[in-house]
């Protein structure tokens, strides 16, 4: 029996994926209402294919608000997502409390695995704490790197590229049999290493991703100025084996979602503590914040400087497609910076609540948001948006500006329809300002 403690995105996805591999799963979370919903097969958030996966594996998974049920488990994962503040700094207090509660109930011989996003050094300290708490029980502690991606979490959980597992000493502490059986079920390479190496491996993976995105952002901006088109160049880069076909080379509106920001903050904090050089990380953070405001600059230059009281449409509120997460979403920063203006927004999954401003209005369809508007800004590349025709948009809008950072629309069709069109990494089409 495999246990999961912590029912946020990571714990829910991972526990269902484990059930899908044929294991019996007990998933514990404090929120009884959430457990009821999950036991009825209802998802608390949108993640493609996850609800279907739960439905087809419901018989093997039980969600419970009673932590003592975890005492029946051979392996218990701590899988609570660690929240971060606006600077990416982690708040580990909830995870600490969860671990304390569960360790007290774990049976003799249980394997404990930290799957949550923890900073380097966390697991070894925890091992020391557990040694003091285990009171005659033989508990083994491992750290396992999670590499879930919002919007692709099911695929990543069912078909991981590899498992990275940290232990106190990889020579002396191999994964015990029940844990190894579970890992083997996923049929992927297993890399074992010491705790600190595994913890830093996760961060290193994310640093590589941020580095690639920062290159894409830096070069894309140059493309916009000198008449090159980044999308024409990317295939050439990906054929270089040193870069690779899966490299993160899509320019974006800054780093969002929370996880990459957390790892950037961790590296800066560690570099500060140990006196190592982190100038390049500072530059990535600075570039990310700079590119986050790309759409705002285009809107000021093309709309606000020219029109009195413009109506601006924002398509997409999630920080990326196929997720309901708005953590550090560029769309929300944009809306906040445009508060004095009339904003109409549409997102297929996200409904904003709270104080968004009296000029903000959310519609129930993409085209409805466009009626009479001066400019359309597509802040999240949901697939649904590419199915709206340029002619429909032209007929609905009063103005003729499309800001499409991710290239959801057909640029040529927009230009032919009389729109000024702006995309990351490409020269603008039909602008009067260039």
């Amino acid at each position, binding site marked *: 029996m495999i246990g999961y403690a912590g029912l946020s995105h990571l714990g829910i996805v991972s526990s269902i994926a484990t059930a899908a591999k044929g294991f019996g799963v007990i998933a514990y979370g404090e929120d009884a209402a959430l457990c009821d919903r999950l036991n009825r097969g209802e998802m608390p958030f949108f993640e493609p294919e996850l609800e279907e996966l739960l439905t087809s594996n419901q018989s093997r998974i039980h969600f419970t608000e009673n932590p003592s049920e975890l005492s029946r488990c051979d392996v218990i994962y701590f899988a609570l997502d660690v929240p971060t503040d606006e600077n990416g700094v982690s708040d580990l207090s909830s995870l600490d409390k969860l671990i304390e509660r569960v360790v007290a109930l774990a049976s003799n011989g249980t394997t404990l695995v930290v799957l949550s996003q923890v900073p380097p050094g966390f697991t070894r300290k925890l091992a020391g704490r557990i040694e003091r708490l285990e009171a005659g029980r033989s508990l083994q502690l491992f750290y396992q790197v999670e590499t879930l991606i919002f919007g692709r979490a099911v695929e990543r959980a069912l078909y991981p590229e590899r498992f990275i597992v940290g232990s106190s000493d990889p020579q002396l502490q191999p994964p015990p049999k029940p844990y190894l059986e579970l890992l083997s079920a996923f049929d992927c390479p297993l890399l074992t290493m010491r705790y600190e190496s595994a913890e830093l491996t996760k961060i290193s993976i994310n640093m590589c991703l941020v580095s690639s995105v920062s290159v894409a952002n830096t070069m894309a901006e140059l493309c916009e100025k000198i008449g090159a088109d980044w999308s024409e160049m990317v295939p050439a880069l990906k054929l270089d084996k040193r870069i690779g076909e899966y490299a993160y080379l899509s320019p974006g509106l800054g780093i969002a979602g929370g996880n990459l920001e957390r790892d950037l903050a961790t590296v800066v904090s560690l570099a500060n503590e140990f006196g190592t050089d982190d100038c390049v990380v500072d530059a990535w953070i*600075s570039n990310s914040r*700079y590119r986050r*405001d790309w759409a*705002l*600059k285009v809107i*000021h*230059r093309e709309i*606000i*400087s020219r029109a009195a009281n413009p109506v601006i449409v924002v398509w997409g509120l999630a920080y990326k497609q196929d997720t309901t997460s708005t953590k550090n979403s560029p769309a929300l920063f944009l809306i906040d*910076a*445009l*508060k*004095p*203006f009339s904003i109409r927004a549409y997102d297929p999954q996200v409904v904003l609540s709270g104080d968004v401003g009296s000029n903000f209005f959310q519609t129930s369809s993409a085209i409805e948001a466009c009626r009479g508007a001066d400019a359309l800004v597509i802040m999240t590349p949901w697939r649904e948006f590419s199915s709206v025709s340029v002619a429909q948009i032209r007929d609905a809008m009063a103005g003729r500006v499309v800001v499409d950072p991710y290239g959801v629309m057909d640029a040529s069709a927009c230009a032919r329809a009389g729109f000024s069109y702006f995309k990351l990494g490409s020269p603008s089409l039909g602008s009067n300002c260039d």
Partner: protein
Amino acid sequence: MIRHIETEATRPARVVVLGATGFVGQDIIRHLNESGIEAVAISSSDIDLIKPESVEKLRGAIRENDSLIIVSAITPDKGKDAGTLMRNLTMGQHLSAFLEEANCSHVVYISSDAVYADDANPVRETSCCDPSSFHGLMHLVRERMFAAALQKTKTPYLILRPCAVYGARDTHNSYGPNRFLREGLKEHKIKLFGQGEEKRDHIYIKDLSRLVASCLLHRSQGVLNIATGHSISFFDLAEMIARLCGNGVEIEGSPRANEVTHRHFDITAIYKAFPEFKITSIENGISETFDEIKRASQG
């Protein structure tokens, strides 16, 4: 990079402008008067900040709860040497002595983009401050002197760092729009360093004054760069001015003495602080300036 203490625009009780007879100070006074905000002009002939007794005179002239704008400085056209630096710092020292014990409602220091490193592109409020000139160093030291003084009284403090400012009443003859306009109109020839390759941002004086007023209305604090976000080469600027002047104004290059450097600004902070503020384009600003100079010469 700035925070508004007053989220709704709130008229200050009274504004005192130190350095009110200079190009920038005069225009700020003009704009405040036009906006119906009570403004008191103090120039170096009223209070000479170089002199130690200026501290006492400032105490007599500035009331509790006044908003204070500091523009006073010996400008680079009057000296770029160490002596000028020290005189400017002495003025700063006396002002600091006054600020330490004053109870102003708000203090705005008009500094300069010269505080930034020459290669800090695009320049943002967070860019590295590493001035290459005594003028930039003077502003940076004064920024910090005033910050330290105002910290004692917890007075809201705003630093504005404008790029090169242009406008019809500019008396300086520094390289850029004002000099080009004079040369174009009087000599029918605009002289460039090299071929005028350097790109720079130039802010229209009326935009600077409007932004200063907006900051006063919101008692903004922090640091804000003042620029258009659009840099053009001196050659393009000269061409623009030559077209306005007409009569075949010649643009004359010269052997290059220094390497080409450019300066660009990221003005996102202005967009965020004042979303509805419309910046005057260089084309419109130069055109207005040209018309004003022509009117003045005819009148």
